[in-house]
């Protein structure tokens, strides 16, 4: 096995171990932050499928998180559903709405698509705010309970963190499967060259809709865990700002990289904590850092690292070649 593969496997195991063991020694607030990272990563993974793999920009992921969160909030508080039974319903609901949102994507691309999804995001916010009979409007939904799963009580921060982590693990495995299936390859073909993909016999129509639907369903799943994590939801949490935030997570981490959303969400969730001493200036700093990153590496942090590694590899290869050359010459001469 190659050393790089071994290093990646070792690094992966170390990170998983850290995610499992470190929280045992963490305070309540740190656990909350880490749980938020897991939940946001799920939403960002979904958007990465739509944007990074299939190349369809969406500014509506925050709205799907909102739909999932409201489904969880309404059904668990008013109707006494267990949280895990809301999960398939919310995912299905977002899948269907996402499929519908994909239709404009069939007709228009890029910036037009950004605006259609932006419009959808604002419409969803208006519905959350105005349909008081359903969502309680600006008062929001309080007392969203964390679930008891087969007798395992997740009321306390630590068990709930493990629940979020488990959800993230399942999502990751599912995404891995999708990306490495024929679907994933079709998504990539769609991103790289839609017309060529079509001429190769890929049903671009169906795959575009699919990319939107699956990405949106992940947003819904993220929302289902978001609601009991914060225990109180109101429309203001699901404005365009959230969609923009999730989009920046995908871009900053590295759009189209499998682990991009993990890195991007980590930065978006942790940076406000690290930059707390800067008080209100944090968002300015974040936005400026994002712009600088984009100028130097539009493929995000993982794109930057990949470029750096590739650069080092070619340099080392040419160094080996240069070192090998004289001996070769010596051999031919003798």
């Amino acid at each position, binding site marked *: 096995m190659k050393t790089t593969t071994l290093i990646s496997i070792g690094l992966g195991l170390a990170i998983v171990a850290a995610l499992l063991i470190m929280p045992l020694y963490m305070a309540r607030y740190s656990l909350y932050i880490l749980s938020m990272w897991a939940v946001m990563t799920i939403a960002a993974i979904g958007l990465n499928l739509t944007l990074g793999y299939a190349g369809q920009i969406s500014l509506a992921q925050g709205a799907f998180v909102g739909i999932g969160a409201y489904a969880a909030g309404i059904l668990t508080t008013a109707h006494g559903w267990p949280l895990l039974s809301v999960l398939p319903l919310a995912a299905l609901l977002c899948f269907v709405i996402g499929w519908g949102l994909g239709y*404009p994507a069939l007709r228009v691309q890029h910036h037009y698509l950004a*605006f259609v999804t932006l*419009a959808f995001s604002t419409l969803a916010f208006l519905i959350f705010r105005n349909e008081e009979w359903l969502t309680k409007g600006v008062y929001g939904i309080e007392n969203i309970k964390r679930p008891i799963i087969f007798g395992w009580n997740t009321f306390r921060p630590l068990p709930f963190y493990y629940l979020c982590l488990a959800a993230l693990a399942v999502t990751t495995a599912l995404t891995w499967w999708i990306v490495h299936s024929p679907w994933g390859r079709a998504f990539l073909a769609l991103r790289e060259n839609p017309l060529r993909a079509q001429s190769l016999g890929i049903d671009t129509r169906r795959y575009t809709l699919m990319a939107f639907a699956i990405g949106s369903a992940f947003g819904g799943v993220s929302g289902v865990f978001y609601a009991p994590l914060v225990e109180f939801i109101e429309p203001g949490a699901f404005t365009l700002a959230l969609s923009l935030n999730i989009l920046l997570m995908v871009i900053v981490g590295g759009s189209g990289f499998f682990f991009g959303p993990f890195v991007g969400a980590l930065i978006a969730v942790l940076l406000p904590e690290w930059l707390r001493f800067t008080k209100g200036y944090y968002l*300015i700093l974040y936005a400026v850092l994002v712009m600088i990153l984009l*100028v130097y590496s539009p493929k995000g942090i993982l794109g930057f690292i990949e470029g750096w590694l590739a650069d080092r590899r070619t340099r080392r290869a040419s160094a080996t070649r240069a070192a090998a050359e004289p001996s070769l010459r010596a051999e031919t001469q003798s």
Partner: protein
Amino acid sequence: MSNFINLLIAGLATGAIYAIIAIGFTLLWQTSQTINFAQGEFVMVPAFFILAVLNLGVPFWLAILAGFAISAVVLGVLFKKMLVDPMLRHGVLPLAIATMALSIAMKESVKEFYSAEAQPFPSIIPAGSIDIFGVAVSLQSVGVLVAAIAGVIVLNLLLNGTSLGHQMQATAQNPSVARIIGIPVERMIMLTFLINAALVTFAALLVTPIYLAKFSSGEVLGLSAFIAAIVGGFNQVRGAIVGGLLLGVVDNLAAAYVSTQYRGAFPLLLLIVIILFRPEGLVGRTEERKV
């Protein structure tokens, strides 16, 4: 009836402002493939430039001139040199996302360095009302409408009536051919950025007395301008005008006669319908797709 006429004129006035913002937006897209998601913040910020200069105790007209000058440097030259030029080679989407980050930076900067509260802003149009067909109409609305139309006419004269305007149009239509026939393409692109800076400052002068100067006011303005540009037709200046006026009227009438709660929804529905059934816009041309 008098109510309807008032709503119509107020709608046309806001629509004319949207049109001005949308024209700048489409100009940037045409000459340099820049989708400026910060266009709304570009209207919000000049108002604060002017307020900051006013605070130094200078007269209003001088503050306005200073506002135009600062906007030209910051929103024209610096925006192009520091963000658009280095980002352009990465493609349309990364640049669009960079302008989203820019909009966050501008909003938060105004909030932190100036104020989070809405600021009153002096009007260049006197208060009061005038009589049109026996109906008392707010002078503010009429004044904004007249000023905006005058602005559009001046811009049209510049674009269609002067050699400079023709060079700019050639640059927008085909940069490589324009370069071959000796048009200074780079300078023309820079000129579009300066015109955009002037347009947003002009829009700020018209709109801020009505809605006050606030760090968040760019969100609605930007969104409305995007919608106006798309509804009218993204690649046409007259598209932006048609889209802007239509949007202003639809917005005002729907808010008054259908639902105030869902006021923000009507322009969005209009946008979705247009994109689904006439994606090139009401008066736009279809853009060709390249393999």
